[in-house]
């Protein structure tokens, strides 16, 4: 360190140091992403390989999903769907459209603007680090993580019996997709002042890409080519195998990265193209009360999860007639959707309600996690230094987050009921749909109770809530399909609801779950009133 080195080795010194720093910052997050993505891909592939084990079954699946535009709009237009790889690409299509871009966005934003915003970047640039090197290191680490994920995909696909060439091209198309969004986030990190802005704009681009791809696929026009998601799809890994199509995302990604690096090297630290303007000088009266502030704190999350719920239920509802038609001729499809017997429409609404329950439970856990953030960042301490008591603070937040839960469940169920009723032309579905949505509330409240208990006792262990949520989601989505034993299914509170409206609502179980939820909440409240603040 003390000896002066030659400029040439100096240049490498900065990048090497930055790579070590970014690697250390990202280590845990990147590993989690790689494992979760790898596991969901391999899980999907394995369960599909087991479910569609003959060419005939694959053929009937292909017929079913290509019979209307609806599924094509959701999962994408899969060329060569009449193969195991094609079915996997179709089934994984929806998840891949969001998870891979998110991987790129998260990795790039985390190591660039967030670091700059926190002031840590300033510390580094004060040392022997050139201005563009943190961004370069962030992009290199992101790329390495994305490529590792891709490798895992290839291994998983080949193990499940998908041909090697197709597997490699498919994995590469997803790697390129994530890379484009990493480049986009790195560029946005140069333009916006806060990491939050990077996420917002990246997600807007992602949503637009999804819509463009959907429209293009549904109308079978060139519009698909405008979307990065379309570029990935057009490589047709299990159809014509257009390797050259990889050049488009590669070129786009590289130019985004290049522009980001150029800007990083030239702009002032802490500067941004887009800045937030002045705001109100005084707080509105409703913001001053504990409930008002809680509403303000939780509003973005409520609206976000509500949008997700409405998007899902609206789409499913609108497509219900088409899906019913497709299922009528194909039992395997019905089974894949978790609808085995009984009236298909009820089964379809029940399946959607289960998805909605998972969304609602996710909101609940995240919202209670917000309380932990308030405490960890020191705002709770300030908040409790006035006339507000702990009990009132926690009660107002609980009230608001339960209100948010009701909004998400009722709003999404209403949309599901209305769109389904319109699609199948029968208004009688509305009441049933709303009732089955509400029937899941006790199950969601159990998770809320658990999260509150953990928060009240040991906020540091809040991860337990997320693990419970992951277990619940896993059992709810894959349990029936993968034919879990009953005791394993029973771990998830959603199992006890009774799968309405296809099955009957288990009133007894709902009462028990409500009791459990209330008990857990009381434990959480009591513990919170007794412990020291702040604890994180």
């Amino acid at each position: 360190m003390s000896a002066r080195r030659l400029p040439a080795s100096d240049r490498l010194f900065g990048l090497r140091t930055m790579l070590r720093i970014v690697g250390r910052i990202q280590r845990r997050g990147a590993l989690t992403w790689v494992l979760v993505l790898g596991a969901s891909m391999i899980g999907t592939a394995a369960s599909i390989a087991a479910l569609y084990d003959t060419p005939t079954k694959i053929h009937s699946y292909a017929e079913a999903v290509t019979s209307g535009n609806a599924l094509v709009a959701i999962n994408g237009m899969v060329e060569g769907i009449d193969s195991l790889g094609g079915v996997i690409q179709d089934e994984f299509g929806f998840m891949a459209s969001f998870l891979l871009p998110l991987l790129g966005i998260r990795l790039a934003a985390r190591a660039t603007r967030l670091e700059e915003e926190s002031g840590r970047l300033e510390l580094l640039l004060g040392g022997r680090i050139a201005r563009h090197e943190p961004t370069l290191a962030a992009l290199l680490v992101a790329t390495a993580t994305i490529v590792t994920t891709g490798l895992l995909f290839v291994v998983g696909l080949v193990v499940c019996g998908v041909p090697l060439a197709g597997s490699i091209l498919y994995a590469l198309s997803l790697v390129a997709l994530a890379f484009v969004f990493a480049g986009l986030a790195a560029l946005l990190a140069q333009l916006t002042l806060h990491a939050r802005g990077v996420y917002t704009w990246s997600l807007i681009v992602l949503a637009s890409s999804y819509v463009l791809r959907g429209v293009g696929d549904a109308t079978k026009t060139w519009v698909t080519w405008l979307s990065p998601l379309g570029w990935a799809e057009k490589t047709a890994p299990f159809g014509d195998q257009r390797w050259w199509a990889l050049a488009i995302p590669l070129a786009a990604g590289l130019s985004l990265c290049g522009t980001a690096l150029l800007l990083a090297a030239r702009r002032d630290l802490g500067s941004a193209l887009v800045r937030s303007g002045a705001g109100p000088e005084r707080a509105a009266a409703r913001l001053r009360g504990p409930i008002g502030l809680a509403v303000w704190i939780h509003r973005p999350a409520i609206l976000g999860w509500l949008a997700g719920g409405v998007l899902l239920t609206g789409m499913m509802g609108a497509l219900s007639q088409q899906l019913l038609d497709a299922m009528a001729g194909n039992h395997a499809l019905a089974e894949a959707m978790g609808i085995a017997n009984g009236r298909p429409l009820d089964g379809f609404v029940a399946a959607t309600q289960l998805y909605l329950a998972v969304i609602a439970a996710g909101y609940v856990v995240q919202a209670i996690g917000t309380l932990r953030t308030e405490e960890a960042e020191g705002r709770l301490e300030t908040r409790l230094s006035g006339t507000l008591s702990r009990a009132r603070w926690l009660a107002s937040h609980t009230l608001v987050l339960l209100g948010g839960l009701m909004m998400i469940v009722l709003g999404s169920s209403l949309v599901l009921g209305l769109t389904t009723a319109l699609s199948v032309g029968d208004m009688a579905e509305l009441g049933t749909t709303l009732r089955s949505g509400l029937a899941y509330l006790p199950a969601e409240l159990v998770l809320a109770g658990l999260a509150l208990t953990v928060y009240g006792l040991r906020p540091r262990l809040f991860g337990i809530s997320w693990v419970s949520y992951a277990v619940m989601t896993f059992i709810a989505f894959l349990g029936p399909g993968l034919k879990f034993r009953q005791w394993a299914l029973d771990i998830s509170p959603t199992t006890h609801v009774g799968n309405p409206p296809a099955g009957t609502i288990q009133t007894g179980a709902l009462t028990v779950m409500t009791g459990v939820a209330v008990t857990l909440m009381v434990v959480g409240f009591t513990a919170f009133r007794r412990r020291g603040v702040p604890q994180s």
Partner: protein
Amino acid sequence: MTDTAVIHTEGLTKVFGNVRALDRLDLTVRPGEVHGFLGPNGAGKSTTIRVLLGLMKATSGHAELFGGDPWRDAPRLHRRLAYVAGDVALWPALTGGQCLDVLGATQGGVDERRRTDLIERFDLDPTKRVRDYSKGNRQKVALIAALAAHADLLVLDEPTSGLDPLMEQAFQECIRERREEGVTVLLSSHIMGEVEALADRVSIIRRGRTVTSGTLADLRRHTRTAVRVVTVSEAVGLADADGVTDFQSEWIDGLKDSRFSINSDNLDAVIGRLHAAGIHTLTVTPPSLDALFLQNYGETLDPDEVAADGSLAEAAR
């Protein structure tokens, strides 16, 4: 005295796991005084304040705020106080002005005139979002909120750590004004000059225990004053005089240049001797708070203590 004190703790102890953050700490803050609360990082200043605010429960010992129990009665007692936390944390998406109102809403009341006046004096733009503020500006928001509140007690935990000298000046003026109105202030600080300028009484704590407490004059009486003197002839018996230590002297250009330190009680006698020798120049420096502080800390912290501070910070986290 207990019943009139604004803050009174006796044998206050707080244990986190196996770390003793507070170890039988005694602290008394009387009505109307500015009380300097000094100690190095990890000495237990913030923990004491959190116990006094009822944010944490003492493991043992006694803590009183306005004669009440802060753990059981926090919201009622908080009506009469305003607090600035050591790490100012606000909602990044709110503007400074909105934060002032949100904070004010849970205080005993806000003096609107003073709020406007303080915004001007601290030169704060209340329409800017908190996330766009510098550290110093966030600090100002918390300070203005506390100073504008109708409070009988201000609890300030290192309130000026991010302020520039100009704002530091404004802060000191505001504290003096509030004291004149009869407000009591508990001022935890690292800035000795600030405490020296503001505090009526000082408590120095170390490893969760009060090392010394009293008025600045009290503390000085038991400490040493530095003297530098140039005399025409050599003062007789100066080196061996009562209370003189660290004596050094040399002849420069026919004058005797001496330096020594002396107990305040013996100062008068020694000055007599100097006078007899013919004073050319004389500088008498009373002990600064820095010196008092360091003296109470034995110059440096030993390695053990640094380690204990580290683990304490961990435990508090």
